[in-house]
Each structure stands twice: as C-alpha cells, then as structure tokens.
C-alpha cells in the first residue's frame, strides 16, 4: 500500500510495462482512429504501405510474443487476402489482361486494386489489435467518462456488459448442456439443429435479460444512477500520451501526404 504524506492511501498503482500500456487509452484510441481514418479515406497502395510499415515498426512496443501475434492476426491475414481477391475479381477490368479462364478475368488494373485493398485491410485491422492488447476496458471507460465526459451511466452500463462477454460465452455452453439434459437438445438433421440453435439463442437472450435485470438491481442497490459520482481512479494524461498521439498524427499525415505526392491518392467519395 502506498501512503501519501498526508496519510491517505493512494490508488493502487497501475502495472507499468510497455510504453503503450502506460499511455492513456484515449490517446491510443485517438491515434488509432487517425491511422484508421488516413487509410479509410483513400484506396491506394502508397498510403496503406506507409501506415502498415509504421505499424509493423511499432510491433516491439507491444511486448507480445511472435507466436501470440500470429495466433491473433492470422484471421486478419486471411481476411485481407480474401478482400484482395474479391476486388481483383470484381474491379473494373482496366490495363492489360493478365489471366483469363472462363468467367474469371484479371487485368493489371484489377490486380493492383486488389493489392491496394489487401494492404489497406491490414493497415485498418492492426490498430484495433494494438488497442485491444494494451488496453484494459476499465481504463478506457474511466477515460471516456472522465476525459471525454460521455454520460457515465452509459459508459459504466456498457463496461459492466462487456465483462459478461466471457460469462455469456460460458453460458452458451452450459445452456446447451442443460437443454440436452432435459431432452431439448439438438437431434440429428439440419432442420432440427437449426431449430435447436434458435431455441438455444432465445434461451441465451432470456438469460442475458435476466442477468441484466439482476445486475441492474445490484448496481442500483449500490447507489448507481445518481447524477453525481466520483472516480476512485482519475484518468490522467502524461508525456507518453503526447508522444502516442503525435506519432499517430505524424504517420497518418505522412501517409496521406505521400499518397498525394506519389499521385496515387484516391479519395473514396469521388
């Protein structure tokens, strides 16, 4: 326990760790949003490559093992590949024909567009992963309510619900077993299984609503819902946050600038 000179005990220290873990969630969020925005507004390989390169360069900051990273990101790689393939397949067939088999036609133009979309997909996905692996939802909620002044009832309601993600996943399994035990489990056949899935879904929603009403009672019993409340842990900004935000700003501005300079900038609303 830390005791201040005036005798009051301080809030428990947040675990130190990587730079990104120490930053305020809001600065990370803002930075990630900027990066996302920079790649969202244009579809071109230059801006995506710049952002992606910067993101990969920041990887060591995550303090995450390569194996873990691959396990978390392989679905993103697959999705990026599928996105690239889809666009190459469906884009305007400009440029020279590279491949033509039956209905499938790939031209240099469509393949380039596909590559740009694939790179862009990765560049969009990574900031989410960064934010997720380095941010505690509670800290994010603290920051949203205290710094952004979002209404605390919604922020805390959402936070309490997010805690239930794992519990409800667990509950889904348990409900399956419980229904099976009563003879309402899935029998064979696609139609029966679909019906079973529907029944189990409704049961989960019922449980969710029950849980929610009980949770609301518990929260209300603990004084939740008043207009005024204090925060035991104050959300603060520090130099780290300036750096995080600055880096995000610099990379996104740089990416757009590079695309404009290279003449590839391709605004999505035109």
């Amino acid at each position, binding site marked *: 326990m830390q005791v201040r000179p005036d005798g009051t005990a301080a809030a428990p220290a947040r675990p130190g760790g990587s730079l990104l873990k120490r930053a305020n969630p809001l600065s990370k969020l803002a930075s*990630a*949003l900027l990066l*996302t925005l920079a790649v*969202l507004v244009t*579809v071109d390989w230059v801006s995506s490559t710049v952002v992606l390169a910067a993101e990969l360069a920041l990887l060591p900051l995550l303090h995450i093992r390569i194996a873990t990273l691959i396990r978390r990101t392989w*679905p993103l790689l697959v*999705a*990026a590949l*599928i*996105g690239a*393939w*889809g*666009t190459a*397949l*469906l*884009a*305007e067939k400009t440029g020279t024909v590279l491949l033509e088999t039956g209905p499938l036609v790939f031209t240099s133009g*469509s393949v380039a567009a596909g590559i*740009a*979309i694939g790179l862009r*997909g990765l560049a*969009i*996905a*990574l*900031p*989410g*992963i960064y*934010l*997720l692996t380095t941010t505690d939802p509670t800290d994010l909620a603290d920051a949203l309510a205290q710094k952004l002044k979002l209404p605390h009832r*919604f922020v805390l*309601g*959402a936070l*309490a*619900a*997010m805690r*239930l*993600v794992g519990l*409800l*996943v667990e509950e*889904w399994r348990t409900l399956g077993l419980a229904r099976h035990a009563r003879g309402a489990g899935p029998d064979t056949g696609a139609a029966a299984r679909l019906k079973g*899935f529907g029944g189990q*879904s*409704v049961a*989960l*929603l*019922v*449980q*969710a*609503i029950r*849980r*929610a*009403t009980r*949770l*609301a009672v518990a*929260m*209300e019993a603990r004084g939740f*819902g008043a207009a005024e409340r204090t925060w035991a842990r104050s959300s603060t900004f520090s130099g780290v946050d300036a750096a995080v935000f600055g880096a995000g700003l610099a990379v996104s501005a740089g990416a757009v600038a590079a695309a404009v300079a290279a003449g590839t900038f*391709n605004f*999505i*609303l035109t």
Partner: protein
Amino acid sequence: MVDIVVASVLAVAVGVIFWAWSLGYAGVSALTAAFPPLAGLYTGGWLIAGVLGALIIRKPGAAIYCEMLAAAVSGVLGTQFGLSVLLSGFIQGLGAELVFLIFLYRRFTLPVALLAGLGSGVFLGLSENILYNLEWAAQWQLLYVILTAVSGAVIAGGLSWLAVRALARTGALAPFASGQTGKA
C-alpha cells in the same frame, strides 16, 4: 437505468450468439470468397442487435447504442475490421433508428421491424461499398446493396421480431414496454 444495462447486455448476448453461429459455418467464407457479393446475404446477422434492442427497449437511440456496442463486442472477440467497426456500427444502427423514428417510436410491428432491418441493411451495403468495395465495378456494388438489404430485412428484421415474440412468451420482457403490450 435498467434499460441501459439490459440494452448493453442484449447487445453483448447478440454478439455472442453471432460468434457461436459463425463457429459452425466456416464453409460460408469459402462460398463467399468465390463470389464476394454473396457475403452480403450473410451480413444481416451483424444487424440483429440494433433492431432487437429497439424492439425490446422501445426508446430513442436504442438501435444505435445496441448496434455500436455489438460492434465493439465483435471487436473484442476478434474481427478483421479494426476500429472501423465502431463507425460501421453507428451507420448500421442509424439505418434502423431512422425507421423507428419515422414511426415515432410508436409502432413495433412486423412490417416496421422488416423495414428497420432493411434500412440497416441498406446503410450497411452503402457504407461498405464506400469503405471497402470501392474498387468493385458498379453493377457488383449495386448487387451487394440489394443482397445486404434483403439480408437485413429477413435476418435482422424478421428474426429479431420472431425472437422478441419468443422472448415475450417466456415472460422475460415483463419489465419492459415490449412485454407489457403483449405482442410486439
């Protein structure tokens, strides 16, 4: 107060159901990879939270709030869309919200639910075209919007309405407006 917590938990539960659903249907991705616009048929699943939340809570903003939170859940459970899910969640929720607004939050019948799902689906299709499918040829983009609209109406609108009816029958909705008027 109860409404906020219930709306939040509902959104989370829908996220979980959708996750359970997608576990068993990896084959769908293979199919849609062959012809991407088909993915539009599947997207209605993402839109359930907004329509369902509004049908149950019956308050302004419920659709947008639930849809955004469900989007955040899908972010937590892993998605390839990164932070842009929040933007998408907002846009999709807005599509449903506008329909309920047109009916002044007074009517929650099957046609309204279908329309809300449709609205949500159209907003989803249009926004995805702008955000991700930008390079597709125009006819494919149009096809995509049509498919997402159908999917939104049928899956998000129809299924949500059925779910609310089933929930009302279990009595779970008793504390809410949707449970007190009996049939939604």
